[in-house]
């Protein structure tokens, strides 16, 4: 793999002072976070700290009550997850939501299927394009697919998570949000996902990685942002902190 791109001065994603309230619950109380190209930022914190809520605001699921989010220095306000995806923000979830009966290519293109004209007139799905895109994309993740028409339901959890990540890469997502992407996986599969995160980083994409596993975080992240009860509890570069310090930030001192 090529050298890690140096961090550009301008972050791709910049979250400034976002607030989110659900009825009586203040899920986020003014949180800020920035993400640079080729950077992996881990988001840590106890259950209910607000990690998922923060990623959902970035990905257009919820609007922010207050504060702003900028992409490439421009303030954005996404009305829907589709709008965020159009702008290059993809989310990978722990539940591996793929259409199990469809091929890798069909999953990568789900909702945006390429068409061609059969006999010059009849519009039909361009399966050849889907298959070749699947092959190329998975190869970029160091997966070599032998049967491009096999439904993804036949693959293991880690391989399916790779398909979800492949989908983000194919559509050239620059910001990839991963909400506990390894939570549903066994240990060897978790390692595969971690290596995929390293590939994304090497490709110059920005990754926000939510995990409960400090070992994983220390293995792939450049920085760690700790939330506690909706507020920023601390932010550290991975090389300059320890497990103990992060745990203290999480539970409060």
């Amino acid at each position, binding site marked *: *793999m090529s050298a890690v791109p140096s961090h550009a001065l301008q972050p791709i994603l910049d979250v400034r002072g976002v607030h989110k309230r659900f009825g009586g619950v203040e899920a986020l109380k003014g949180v800020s976070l920035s993400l640079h190209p080729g950077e992996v930022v881990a988001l840590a914190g106890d259950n209910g700290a607000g990690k998922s809520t923060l990623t959902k605001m970035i990905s257009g699921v919820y609007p922010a009550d207050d504060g702003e989010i900028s992409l490439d220095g421009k303030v954005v306000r996404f009305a829907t997850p589709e709008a965020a995806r159009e702008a290059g923000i993809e989310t990978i*979830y722990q539940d591996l939501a793929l259409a199990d009966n469809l091929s890798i290519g069909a999953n990568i293109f789900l909702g945006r299927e390429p068409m061609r004209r059969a006999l010059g007139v009849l519009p039909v799905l361009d399966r050849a394009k889907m298959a070749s895109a699947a092959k190329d994309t998975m190869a970029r993740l160091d997966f070599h697919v*032998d049967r491009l028409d096999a439904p993804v339901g036949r693959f293991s959890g880690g391989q399916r998570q790779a398909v979800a990540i492949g989908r983000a890469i194919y559509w050239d997502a620059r910001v990839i949000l991963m909400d506990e992407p390894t939570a549903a996986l066994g240990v060897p599969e978790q390692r595969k996902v971690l290596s995929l995160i390293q590939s994304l980083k090497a490709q110059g994409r920005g990754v926000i990685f939510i995990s409960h596993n400090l070992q994983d975080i220390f293995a792939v992240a450049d920085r760690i942002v700790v939330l506690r009860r909706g507020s920023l509890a601390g932010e550290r570069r991975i090389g300059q902190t320890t497990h103990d310090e992060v745990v203290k930030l999480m539970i409060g001192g």
Partner: protein
Amino acid sequence: MASLTPSQVLNDRASRGSLSRVLLLAARLRAWLFLLLLLVLFEVWAQVSYGASFMFSSYNAQSIAVFAVAPLLLALGETFVIIAGGIDLSVGFIMGLSAVISAQGANIAGSYMPAFPAMLAGIAAGLLVSLIPGAVNGWLISKLKVPPFIGTLGMFGVARGVAFLLAAGTTVPVTNSDFAYLGNGRVLGFPLVVVITVLFLLLMSYILGQTRFGQHTYAVGASEQAAVRAGINVGRHTRKLYLLSALCAGLGGVLYTARFTAGAAQAGEPLLLDSIAAVVIGGASLFGGSGTILGTVAGSLVIAVIQYGLVFIDVEPFWQFVAVGVVIIISVLVDQTQRKLGGDR
């Protein structure tokens, strides 16, 4: 930078021995194998008992094809709905409603215009009216979140009642020579209803296999969550599915009226179970996510061959229920085994 894991080949877990490959292939083609088996059985029986051929008689072949038309039309729409993880129990009486409306429509129009446009008016009326219960089904299921089984069971009752009310409890004879020709005429020696059905099934096969609509139907059936996250409007897709199913039933009703030159509210009454059976025998799973038009065609032919064949060899007609039932059960067992083996559609 070193990867944490070496590069790897994505291998599907089902690629085991050649025996399991053969079994999976057989499971996938089970409807065609059933069909072949049935044809051989009836052929042997016909040769032994009558010294005549069963399947190489063009009279028998055409009778089976004509016989299969109505259940196949219902099954085509049902295939889409079942692949998407739903079910449409109202198709039989939507067909009856369309049969009655198209007969009445053609009759009323016939007093203002010549036979051909009057027939077209009747057909249009039957198809358009059948879209109403389809739209209501889709609305109940997508907007009010009524389970498909319940929503369409309700519509089964409503369409049934309305069809009988409109027909005033009797059949509605059609006095339109063009409509009668549509149901009983021939093109190039083939029954017109069969030709229309074949063209329609090619269209349905194209929609399911080659368009985004078809692709999204499979996705919704596999994981609604995945479909939503991919930006598919699942509610709107669901509404289209039930409209499509109703339209297929409506066409079945129109062709019924054409064939019998009369519309009847009970036209599709016995066909609901046959159509669902055809879809299941054809390899679709009632859990959603799998099925094909080609499979449904085979499933419909299996049922038609059983029904016609048992009459042909002069067995008590009630045996057909037993035979179709057994085939359904075997199909579902094969489907379950196939899932365990990790096979796909």
